């Protein structure tokens, strides 16, 4: 009926042999790597070798739940999908909320490790202990919403939770995603394409079991306290009221609103992209939570007119209103909601899809692309109709132009040439989140060293803005002085990034949404360690927790070293390094190579990695207990 959360289990799935088998996680590993993102890092490193084809049989996908997922720990329902990325050829961990993680845990599984390739389209059906690989030929080609509905009908159970790919994943679009229980998405780096390359259309789960904690009553009480503290945070309230796009007015005021492919930092009528507007104008019809979360930042919206089509769907998030909205020169709310819906249903990451199109728009405006080369599309900024058509074509790689763009801006700009790489807002092959890394130096460093590419979802250093007393307290704790809570400074950035890496890692190992520990601070290393101890019945202190975070970040770096990545790959998009912020309060700012080098020197030294190459030193790995796992890539020293 219930199992102790300290006894973790892996479901191994070999799609080539169509075989599944169970495996236990050693308790020592649980304490060392904490769970979730940490165990996933260890598993991926062990079960792949350098140079595997990300879209081939030897790539491995690790679906990982948080170590505390499914308990009353607040906002601890987050899970992750980890594999090698087909967009970057590097480490890829993608986080996702929703309800699949909890369902998997109740079914008796903490990780699902998928290897091999099925001979034809299949889906995985996990019904408590009973696991089946079933034919999915009738589902192939269908959108994500339809697939979820059909699976529920076929399995005769409306309560199943699903993770599905759409046509984009099937067609191996390098920014295709996995849609999870309708309101959530495992988005970046082409994770959907990896699933598609394995012919795995969906994972459906039903879990009827339970989870028990070693010191149940104390656990319940502490988790309840943390939940109430989180709910009292004014940031939580803002997220509930307006969602993540509630930040739009602030970004606009601060001259940090990425627009027109990041060639500008402001756009007229930006309020039409805001969460406040969604609420005031009647677009918002619901607020959704991930499992166990008391913030409910997710939105459910509808269009009010038929102008672009009538939709009701989940989203849009902040990054989406920027990438599909302002970056493409679009502020028409109706058009944006339809574009978001298209990405949801086709199964595409909105950040990359938006930036691929904004790159194409800039290239078109510059006269390098024309209607002939775009297969008939007028790709001027602001053309929402063309954007929608292109989104549909991208998912199916329809036409030579869409087929090219479906490989991301790095490939597309290399093909097109004419310096178009200088306005591809990408690095390592991943499009950057719409945060102005010229104007926020911790972000700049974190983005440059992020193993999956330049975005905020491996490590977000929100505290460097110092908007709240709690965030200033965190900066003081890290650096000794709250005056360092200033995004323009370059001093102490490495310390700030490293603390956030460790906390982010630990949060994602335990299943916590990082909003709770790095935007609000109701969840912190101390209470995370306490909760882990009470839940597992194994003592873990704050220092050990942070070390766990450090370990997974180090494994991720070692994976990339094994793939051939070095210091020179830790860069920002060309525009962020070469073109100054054009207007607003940050006008003139830049994170050029010299500045980045200074930040990287600080960072690698702090980590105990070779400063010239960014390769971890043997002594560092030994100190972290990673010599056996990752020793093959270490540099002497």
């Amino acid at each position, binding site marked *: *009926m*219930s199992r102790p959360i300290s006894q973790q289990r892996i479901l191994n799935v070999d799609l080539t042999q169509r075989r599944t088998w169970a495996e236990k996680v050693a308790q020592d590993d649980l304490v060392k790597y904490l769970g979730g993102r940490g165990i996933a890092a260890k598993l991926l490193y062990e079960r792949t070798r350098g140079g595997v084809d990300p879209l081939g049989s030897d790539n491995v996908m690790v679906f990982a739940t948080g170590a505390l997922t499914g308990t009353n720990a607040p906002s601890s329902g987050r899970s992750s999908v980890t594999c090698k990325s087909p967009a970057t050829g590097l480490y890829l961990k993608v986080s996702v909320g929703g309800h699949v993680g909890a369902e998997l845990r109740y079914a008796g599984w903490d990780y699902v490790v998928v290897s091999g390739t099925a001979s034809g389209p299949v889906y995985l059906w996990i019904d408590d202990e009973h696991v089946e690989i079933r034919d999915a030929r009738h589902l192939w080609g269908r959108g994500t919403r339809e697939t979820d509905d059909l699976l529920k009908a076929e399995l005769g159970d409306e309560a199943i939770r699903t993770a599905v790919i759409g046509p984009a994943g099937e067609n191996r679009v390098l920014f295709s995603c996995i849609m999870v229980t309708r309101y959530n998405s495992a988005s970046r780096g082409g994770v959907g394409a990896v699933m598609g390359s394995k012919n795995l259309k969906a994972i459906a789960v039903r*879990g*009827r*079991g*339970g989870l*028990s904690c070693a010191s*149940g009553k104390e656990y319940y009480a502490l988790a*309840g306290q943390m939940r109430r503290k989180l709910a009292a945070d004014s940031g939580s309230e803002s997220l509930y009221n307006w969602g993540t796009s509630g930040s739009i007015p602030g970004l606009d005021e601060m001259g940090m609103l990425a627009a027109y492919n990041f060639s500008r930092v402001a756009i007229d009528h930006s309020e039409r992209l805001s969460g406040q507007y969604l609420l005031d104008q009647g677009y918002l019809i619901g607020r959704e939570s991930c499992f166990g979360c008391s913030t409910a930042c997710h939105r459910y919206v509808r269009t009010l007119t038929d102008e672009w089509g009538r939709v009701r769907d989940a989203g849009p998030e902040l990054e989406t209103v920027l990438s599909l909205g302002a970056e493409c020169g679009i502020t028409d709310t109706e058009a944006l909601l339809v574009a978001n819906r298209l990405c949801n249903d086709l199964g595409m990451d909105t950040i990359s899809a938006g930036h691929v199109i904004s790159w194409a728009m800039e290239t078109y405006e510059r006269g390098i692309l024309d209607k002939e080369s775009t297969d008939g599309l007028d790709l001027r900024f602001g053309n929402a109709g063309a954007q929608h058509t292109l989104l549909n074509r991208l998912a199916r790689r329809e036409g030579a132009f869409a087929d090219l763009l479906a490989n991301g801006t790095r490939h597309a700009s290399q093909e097109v040439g004419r310096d178009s790489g200088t306005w591809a807002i990408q690095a390592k092959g991943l499009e950057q989140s719409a945060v102005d890394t010229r104007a926020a130096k911790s972000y700049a460093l974190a983005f440059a060293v992020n193993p999956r590419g330049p975005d905020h979802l491996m490590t977000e250093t929100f505290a460097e803005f110092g908007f709240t007393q709690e965030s200033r307290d965190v900066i003081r704790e890290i650096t000794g002085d709250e005056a360092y809570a200033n995004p323009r400074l370059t001093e102490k950035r490495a310390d700030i990034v490293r603390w956030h890496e460790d906390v982010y890692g630990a949060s994602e190992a335990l299943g916590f949404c990082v909003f709770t520990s790095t935007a609000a601070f109701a969840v912190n290393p101390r209470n995370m360690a306490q909760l882990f101890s009470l839940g597992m019945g194994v003592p873990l202190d704050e220092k050990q927790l942070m070390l766990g975070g450090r370990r997974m970040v180090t494994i991720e770096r070692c994976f990339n070293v094994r793939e051939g990545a070095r210091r020179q790959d830790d860069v920002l998009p060309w525009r962020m390094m070469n073109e100054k912020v054009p207007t607003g309060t940050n006008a003139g700012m830049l994170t050029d190579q010299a500045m980045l080098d200074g930040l990287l020197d600080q960072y690698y030294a702090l980590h105990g990695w070779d400063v010239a190459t960014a390769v971890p030193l043997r002594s560092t790995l030994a100190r972290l207990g990673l010599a056996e796992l990752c020793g093959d890539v270490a540099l002497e020293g």
Partner: protein
Amino acid sequence: MEAEILNLTLDVAKCTACRACELACSFAKEGFFSPSLSRIRIMQAHEAGLNVPIVCVNCASAPCIPACPTGAVYRDRTVPVVRIREEECIGCGECIRACPFGAVDRPQCKEVALMCDLCDGNPACAPECIYGALTFDPKRQPAEAKRWATAKVIAARVREK
């Protein structure tokens, strides 16, 4: 004045499907976390974008009571609440068939039917609902509260003229 029928108050528009109530209930009743054993269940109606809590509402003419062959299902006037005496429940499922809402159930691993009993008047779930979708006020008369609220609005408007 105590209410004759005591209930959790459900505000569907506010439910975000966080399922903290399911966790609280299963923990309070079973000592571990298991939504399948929760006496309150959140149903996600995706098309409408709404989440609907389903829980026993202590009907005045509760069909589960006459349906029960052993008398295990009864109205406990001390709380007050309709509940199940587990020692007398044979797990036949008649109450489950009788309940029009699906609020009574017998999960696979249980021998007896489960139904919300308001935790004897101090429900574990309501304090966990941050959104106010689930509230519990033992003295509340919902119709009377609405009469007062409406009256005040009308009175204020009449005064303005």
